[in-house]
């Protein structure tokens, strides 16, 4: 997937179709993903997995109550062989997440026979469950498969592994963040506006929040601090400047100081166009961060309440 979308920070950006593979160029759609904790779902202290997040339950359009009942039945009757997340246990029970019985199931039609009757000769006992209970387990199993295959439903794990003190030192030192920002000024309250993962994306590559087109929490008042400006130098040496609308090799458009729309044809770099992007510093700085710098900074910025 391409990250040409200018508005993807603080958001999870995925291809427009949730089921589309990551590998192709296509439109991105960006959605907020709430940070669900997985242990709340599985109720066990096991390692984090991608299975059956609340987001997956919603997106799969299964009945949440049935899924919830099914999860308990599965834990009690099936997990000992198929694993808590139905991915299978070698030598005991097969992976059900990738089982065609689950993937192809509709309304329990495919799943009911093996669950009701078992396969006693192959190590799968009769479940003894009622028809209604089987339908609940089937709903829960379908969510497992859905969740595995749909990235939009994944849950971010612990993003706050950094050292806030080191992040603060970097903010005021090597990062020179304090030359443009203040923790008690423009960045005040930052930590309460985003999840840690969103915040990490947000500060790495902000997309601007003030003025026209700004996106984010409390829209700032006054002129946007992230607006690109442009100076167009015509063949006769005259210059026209203003806020950039768009530019390519053949055309540049802007709004001048009076607010008027101006459009110029370009031909092999003439007229000359000089764009100033207040956010370019953020892109340029990407090459300077270590992952530790990044995690420390995020840990610091979440403290700005």
């Amino acid at each position, binding site marked *: *997937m*391409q*990250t*040409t*979308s200018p508005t*993807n*920070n603080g*958001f*999870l950006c*995925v*291809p427009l*179709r949730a*089921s*589309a*593979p*990551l*590998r*192709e*160029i296509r439109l991105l759609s960006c959605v907020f993903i709430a940070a669900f904790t997985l242990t709340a779902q599985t109720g066990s202290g*096991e*390692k*984090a*997995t*991608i299975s059956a997040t609340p987001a997956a339950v919603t997106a799969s359009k299964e009945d949440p109550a049935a899924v919830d009942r099914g999860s308990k039945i599965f834990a009690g009757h099936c997990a000992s062989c198929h*694993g808590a997340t139905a*991915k*299978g246990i070698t030598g005991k029970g097969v992976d059900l997440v*990738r089982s*065609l019985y689950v*993937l*192809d199931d509709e309304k329990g039609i495919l799943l009911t026979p093996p669950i009701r009757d078992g396969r006693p000769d192959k190590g799968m006992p009769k479940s003894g469950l009622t028809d209604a209970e089987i339908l609940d387990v089937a709903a829960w199993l379908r969510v497992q*498969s859905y969740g*595995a*295959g749909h990235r939009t439903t*994944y849950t*971010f*794990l*612990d*993003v*706050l*592994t*950094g050292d806030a003190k080191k992040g603060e030192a970097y903010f005021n030192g090597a990062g020179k963040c304090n030359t443009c920002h203040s923790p008690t000024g423009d960045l005040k309250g930052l930590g309460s506006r985003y999840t840690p*993962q969103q915040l*990490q*994306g947000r500060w*790495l*590559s902000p997309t601007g929040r003030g003025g026209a087109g700004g996106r984010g929490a409390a829209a700032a008042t006054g002129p946007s601090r992230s607006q690109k400006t442009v100076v167009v130098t015509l063949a006769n040496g005259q210059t026209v400047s203003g806020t950039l609308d*768009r*530019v*390519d*090799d*053949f055309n540049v458009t802007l709004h001048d100081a009076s607010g008027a729309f101006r459009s110029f044809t370009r031909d*092999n770099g003439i007229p000359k166009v000089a764009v100033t992007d207040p956010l370019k510093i*953020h*892109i340029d700085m*990407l090459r300077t*961060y270590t*992952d530790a710098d*990044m*995690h420390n900074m995020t840990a610091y910025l979440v403290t700005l309440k």
Partner: protein
Amino acid sequence: MNKQAFSYAAAAAAILLSVNVTPASAQGVTKEMLLHPSSDTWPSFFGDYSGRRFSALKEINSTNVGNLSLEWAARYTPGPAGTAVNIKSPALLVNGILYFTSPNNGWAADARTGREIWHYAYPPNTGNTNGNRGFGYYGNWLYMETPDGNLVCLNAADGKERWKIRITDPKLDYTTTAAPIVVGNHILVGVGGDHLDNPGFIESVDPETGATQWKTNTTPRKGEPGIETWPDEYAAAHATGQTWIPGSYDPDLNLYYLGTGNPNPVMAEQSRKGDNLFTCSILAINPDTGKIVWYYQATPHDTHDWDSTESVIMIDGQIDGKPRKLVAQANRNGYFYVLDRTNGEHILTTPMLEGMNWNLGLNAKGQPIPDPAKYPKPDGSLVFPNSGGATNWASASFDPETDLFYVGVAKGWSVYYQTDTDDHPEGYGGVDSGAGSEGGSLLAIDYRTGKITWKHDWPAGGGAAHMLTTAGHLLFTGNGNNIIAFDPSNGKILWHSGLMGTPSNGMTTYMLDGRQHLLVGAGDSLYSFALNHPVK
């Protein structure tokens, strides 16, 4: 071929078709035509087997390209499946008729006007519709994959379905978007999809019946070579390595050069330690048997979704003054590779982007050594480039007259998050989240050294884009909504035209009625260009 006679026949065929009679003269696509396509055809995905997308035509050339003008534009509407039309397929041209696809839809249109001759509309289904990359054409038959995992064979004369066969189970979330490629008596069918750790494969089917001739897995099974690069057979069998972009073919060596996709689980590598053969590789396959004759893995143990499915381009070139049979690939992982195509011997690997941060350098075989510190992590690792890669599936081009290889690159950053830390992860196992872009460029690479001879930085956006070169000393590509002609030796812009959308397919060129045409698709429309005042 005698062009006059040919265009007469094509014109006659078009007249016959307009009154709905199958032209008796249509011989369709022959083996000979695929081996030596004439200038008035574009019979396969890349136009010819070399994959280089270079045309010997020069009526449109660097001195007159300024007169290149629109002849027609035509828009196509989808059938009952309702999938919005997005033409990613090159429009094949045979006997003056264009054949192209969009998911769930295929068309034949008159190359002289763009008017639809027939429309094949696939019924509504729940398959993945992110793309369809076109028809394969052999004899009088067209071959097309459908979103729900089938291959259909259509009569080129009227678009009527001849047969339909199952390639994959759509519920397993394979994507079936690839353009079938015809080699000899084989229809080579590839698949995509890395949602649920499905086995990757390439299948050869019989052109007449659709019966499987052979099927080759792209990852090894028990006892097969390469299994030692996996912790266990289970991991290898669920590792994808898909085959969603066609390869090139050397008839003298009888080898089909195919790039394979990334391993699964995509961003959670803990259950697949090792190099993970034959994912992210270039495979040389015997098209008669399906046997992998040699391989070269461009990205060992990928964790960033960098398929190696980009064009594998054959170059008959010189290395150190000696003639060599080569293949070259500009890879999604940011490196440019040149190999000896007779045996897979590595010749060079060079970076296309500066400052890539995901590996620890190259090993003796020119393979990047992945840096475990830059695997996707629960708290995120900042990686350049992003998962869309330095480049992507859009076709590159090689111009034998400039000796330069042209490719579009994007300079995006991502934070890669691992979301599945289980011992047995499944699916993607992680996501990457965009962290900004330094923009995109068009690169002209000298294949002998891997050095960038010139580049053009786009003022905004840009990245992977289709390329076409011609003997008219022209390089065509797209940026924004523009189709653009460059001087291929120095990157000077010579011509452009604004379209109603972003060029979305590989542009093609051919002779029609004695004049050279340039055809490009953008979204739901095709655009045909020719010189205002053709040189007589």
